[in-house]
């Protein structure tokens, strides 16, 4: 009985711990670069959660969600500049709210065009709108500022509670505050009548019509809500970076939020949070280490689509029942073996990829390449031979551990079935 009631509150406890961690993080990692990264991740979490209102909740695959993030970001920059010219007496702290409203307005405008359809047609229209907005961002110089973008100074206007947003740490807490508020509101939205009907429309738009609902209107309202929170994220980005450029609303940015949400797990509310954190960290750390980081990100995406379509959150959820039944430890031996063999394969494959990248793109740097902790001479056939050998052997070893993992899961599932009433 006790373990059951703990299980029921586990979700709330995890959320509470996550918020506490977000608040304490600047104390735990007191570094300036870390703070910059944490601000970026906070904004990305809000953006990815807003995207999942479309993808996970309403079943709409959008290729243009950065449009609402970017347009609202530009709107926020212009708003802050107005405040700076003493034309608006509002604190910059609440600019994300207005950015959200701008996002919702653009959501209404473009949503009317795109949400009449779903599936492939919706996806194509979202892409067309994204290209349209990206193209106009290069033409409408006064709003988008051309190639260099538009800048602002966030430390203007009336202050609230003495917060002038000069130190970065204040901006971080501003992001945490708006982020937590947005996440709670978005979660609440999933549990309202409209939020439930969005899920119903995702599952079966036809049947939704026969119980009185217009799937188009449900999709449109969902779209507007999603664009609102993308706008909040865009407003936070405007405050954080004090600059917006056309890349913020590019299709690349839209693709990035799609990949994050998918890898995190679109079927679970917290999936995009995990995806935003993991992918941002990968982007931030790998891009310094290797020029091939986009390739690795792409590979991760492909692997997720093929082998873990429910994302990281789906993998977590899969492990919860055995954890509650205290049989999860049966997986450890096979997981360790598989991880060891998988690492051998990964090391070989990464070596091959990096050597290839080096000879094709960085040949001017000479034949030497730092791989992991060793120096590799890419002109030596031996180096290539070893890399190929490690990759091939690693793969065969890795492949042979899969049945072990499968067997362990079968064992666990049969135990779970027996334990079930």
């Amino acid at each position, binding site marked *: 009985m006790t373990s059951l009631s703990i299980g029921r509150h586990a979700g709330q406890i995890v959320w509470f711990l996550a918020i506490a961690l977000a608040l304490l993080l600047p104390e735990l990692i007191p570094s300036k670069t870390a703070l910059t990264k944490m601000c970026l991740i906070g904004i990305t979490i809000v953006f990815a959660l807003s995207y999942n209102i479309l993808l996970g909740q309403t079943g709409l695959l959008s290729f243009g969600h950065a449009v609402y993030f970017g347009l609202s970001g530009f709107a926020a920059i212009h708003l802050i500049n107005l405040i700076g010219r003493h034309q608006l007496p509002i604190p910059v702290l609440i600019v994300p709210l207005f950015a959200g409203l701008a996002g919702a307005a653009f959501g209404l405008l473009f949503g009317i065009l795109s949400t009449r359809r779903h599936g492939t047609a919706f996806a194509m229209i979202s892409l067309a709108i994204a290209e349209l907005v990206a193209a106009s961002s290069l033409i409408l110089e006064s709003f988008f500022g051309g190639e260099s973008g538009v800048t602002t100074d966030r430390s203007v206007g009336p202050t609230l509670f003495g917060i002038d947003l000069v130190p970065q740490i204040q901006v971080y807490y501003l992001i945490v505050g708006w982020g937590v508020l947005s996440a709670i509101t978005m979660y609440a939205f999933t549990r*309202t*009548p409209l939020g439930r009907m969005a*899920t119903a429309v995702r599952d079966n738009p036809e*049947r*939704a019509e026969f*119980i*009185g609902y217009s799937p188009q209107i449900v999709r449109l*309202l969902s779209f507007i809500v999603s664009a609102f929170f993308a706008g909040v994220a865009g407003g936070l980005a405007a405050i954080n970076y004090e600059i917006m450029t056309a890349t913020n609303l590019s299709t690349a940015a839209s693709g990035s939020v799609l990949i994050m949400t998918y890898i995190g797990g679109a079927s679970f509310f917290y999936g995009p949070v995990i995806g935003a954190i993991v992918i941002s960290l990968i982007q931030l750390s790998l891009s310094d280490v290797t020029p091939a980081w986009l390739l690795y990100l792409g590979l991760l995406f492909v692997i997720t689509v093929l082998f873990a379509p429910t994302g990281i959150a789906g993998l977590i959820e899969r492990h919860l029942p055995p954890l509650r039944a205290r049989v999860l430890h049966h997986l450890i031996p096979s997981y360790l073996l598989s991880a060891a063999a998988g690492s051998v394969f990964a090391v070989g494959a990464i070596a091959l990829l990096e050597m290839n990248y080096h000879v094709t793109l960085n040949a001017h740097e000479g034949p030497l390449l730092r791989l992991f902790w060793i120096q590799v001479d890419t002109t030596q056939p031996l180096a290539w031979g070893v890399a190929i050998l490690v990759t091939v052997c690693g793969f065969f070893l890795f492949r042979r551990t899969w049945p072990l993992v499968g067997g362990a899961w079968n064992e666990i599932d049969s135990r779970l079935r027996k334990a079930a009433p």
Partner: protein
Amino acid sequence: MKEPALALTDLRKDFGKTSIIRGVSLSVVAGERHAIIGPNGAGKSTLFHLISGRFPPSGGTVALHGHDITGLKPSAINRRGLSRSFQVSNLFPRLSVSENIRCALLWSTGYRYCFWRWADRLSDVSAKVEDVLTRTGLSGRRDVLAGVLSYADQRALEIGIAIAGGADVVLLDEPTAGMSHSETRRTIDLIREVTIGKTLVMVEHDMGVVFDLADRISVLVYGEIIATGTASEIRASKAVQDAYLGTAGTAH
């Protein structure tokens, strides 16, 4: 005379060059239980699609309580008090059983596009969800996803969604198809109970069920109604025996 709950006038439907519904006129009195029988491919489901707005008719009119609803969208027709079930289960597969029923209730209880209240804390809706769960015998499976229900439970949920909103005209397309004998009995009792004071039109192959439940019966053959009447009138009808009962009746 009282306004008929449902009146079809010279209803037609062509798919390309083939005429599937070829001039159907039918008047269903409020409170009546009306069965539609007919051989496979006669156009029974198509007729339901025309009434409920899934397809626009090629000709003719449909009137609900005297108001013309021809060509309206399914949602508009449903809001005027007509609900239906489908021959092939048409559920929300990734929602649980109780969420399926809750969704079916939201519009009719007036919550519509509301986003400022908790969907699962609406006491009026929850009470009705419980009622439908009990009536359909799905209480024990309330948290199961509709997509993984057994066939019989999916059929029960299909009926549950159709009746949940309390529409006063209910169309059921072969509600007992594929059910065992005891499940059929239970389902028929359920249908009888929930349609008290309502108008029911149902397609049904099981003649025992039809003669037991229906006040009147229409026989649809090749897109045309060849006879309408009480059970005994239909049994006695020469046209029906020639066209249908003599062969299909014994086959089923």
